[in-house]
């Protein structure tokens, strides 16, 4: 990992209403072109521009549902290569 490689991870249990809030924050990030993810170690600033590879995967197995959203793109400058993954889980 280079000095600039960063990772942000958050895990929690939420109901649909709260999830909508988080998704809105992401939508806002896409719309404005900047999505900031911050934790005590620092901040990741993602700038999804141009063509973004987008993948949706949903599964339903043994009463457990999963929704997997994946966005990835190359930054113009070599500063950050962005990837945003969102996973939903329903059991």
């Amino acid at each position, binding site marked *: 990992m280079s000095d600039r490689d960063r990772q942000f991870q958050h895990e929690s249990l939420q109901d649909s209403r*709260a999830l909508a809030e988080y998704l809105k*924050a992401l939508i806002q*990030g896409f719309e404005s072109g900047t999505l900031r*993810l*911050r934790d005590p170690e620092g901040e990741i600033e993602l700038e999804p521009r141009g063509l973004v590879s987008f993948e949706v995967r949903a599964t339903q197995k043994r009463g457990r549902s999963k929704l997997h959203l994946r966005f990835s793109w190359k930054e113009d400058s070599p500063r950050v290569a962005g990837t945003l993954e969102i996973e939903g889980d329903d059991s």
Partner: protein
Amino acid sequence: MTKAVMMKVSDGLDENIRFLIYEVKKQVVRTRSFLQQPTEKLHDSVLSKDDYIDNLKSIIERKCFTLASQVEPGDQVTVDLLKAFDVITVNLERISDFCENIIDQTEHIVEKELMKEFSFGPYFEQVVFGLDHIERALFSRQVPTALKICRAEDTLDQLYGRSFHDIIRRLKTGEGENVEALITLLFIFRYLERMGDSLLNIGEAIISACMGERIKISRFTALEDSLDAADLQDAADVALRPVGETKSGCRISRVSERSSPDTEKNVIFKEGRLHKLDDERRSIERWHQLMPGVAPQIHSFHSQGDNGSILFEYLPGKTFEELTLQGGAEAASRGLRSICDTVTELWEKTRKEDPASPRFMKQLRSRLHDVYDLHPEFRKQASSIGDVDLKSFEELVHALADLDEELAAPFSVFIHGDFNVDNVILNNGAVHFIDLHRSKMADYVQDVSVFLVSNHRLQVFDAPVRRTIHRTIATFFEFSRGFAHRAGDSTFDARLALGLARSLATSGRFVLDPGFAKSMFLRSQYLLEQLARHKGKPEEFRLSPEVLFD
């Protein structure tokens, strides 16, 4: 005992052990003679016999391991006996090693005349006395004889105390010109004293084999006194079966007569820290006044120093945990109905119009570091996604401090205090509570939240059992909310959310499985977020039992 194993035990092992006892005794006698009159011959004899004893020990250990692998499942008597053989062998060999150590030490004493001023005789008499009783105690399974072996240790300790003070006095008063010799003599006495420790281990191993549970002499004495005070069986004639160990460190055993283990004369022996057991005794007395028949009868209470022991009535039946896991959905549902009836009666009968503030967040804060010790990965700092702030667990607990302080049940009732599924016993519709040292007048939501989480926490993931657990949770939740409604308790949901959050998070200190512990911790955090986000009055907060479903 398995017949085949029994035969082999008597064919070979017992002979080996008798030999070992005999050889170790001879070592002890030779060492005594050597201290009286050191000779080259005795010196060599002790050292050469030590190898022979080592060898004998290896043979016995090998046989014990081979036999242990052939024991039929469930044959606890043979397993206990083999364990005793092993402990006895290790400790006999240790006594022989101490003999060798003593002989080695004498080489450092130039002034051999000094040795004559000290009396080693009483030590050796105790050690030989102990060794002489092993065979009978072990092979005739005699607890009183084993106790004599244990008591030799006490006498040896007292002898050592006297020798120690004598030597220190000589060192201080200048009689200690022979400092090296005096210190060497102290080592010799110390080895003799340690022979006593080995004898104690041997005696305890024999008592444990006879009683069916590992027992230390202090515990045996407490049991003896308790049975005596209650006018029950003689401690030497009973068998013990471990029932469990509480989180507060008390040990619980079921005591039955060795000759007829399944009689109704069974009692429960609980031993641990005095103040916990004293709390429990007092609380049980209150239970007897308030709800006769729910708590077990106390046959006797005994204290010694900081430790105490209680002899309880043995309550037949199944715990609610056993009923859920083994009894099937119907039995669990019937059991739950009985529990609901009992707590309704309890809550209605003991209700006092004093508000009770449970202070769940305060309880949570005081135990959180234990959870983090076991699961450091749970300690997370605050973060954010875009404009949405994600509060850390501690921030949430802190943010809810005011609410925690403000919320109170409008009345108090007498609560169990540790209302876990394994602290409720059901027997043909009768409900009994055990482990009652935390009972007090308080908010009933405390018991409700502990009971709900203890159901959720059962680590059985078999689908039908899990469905039974969910049904229990939903039913008990609705039942308690119904009671709250009738009783005019309007903040029940908000307090229960705090109570569940507390129990879910603090359960992590007892759950090693990181996945399961995390799942409970996230549920706790979810509940705290719900409360923190709630904008209306606490009375308007609504909780769904789904937070405890998988």
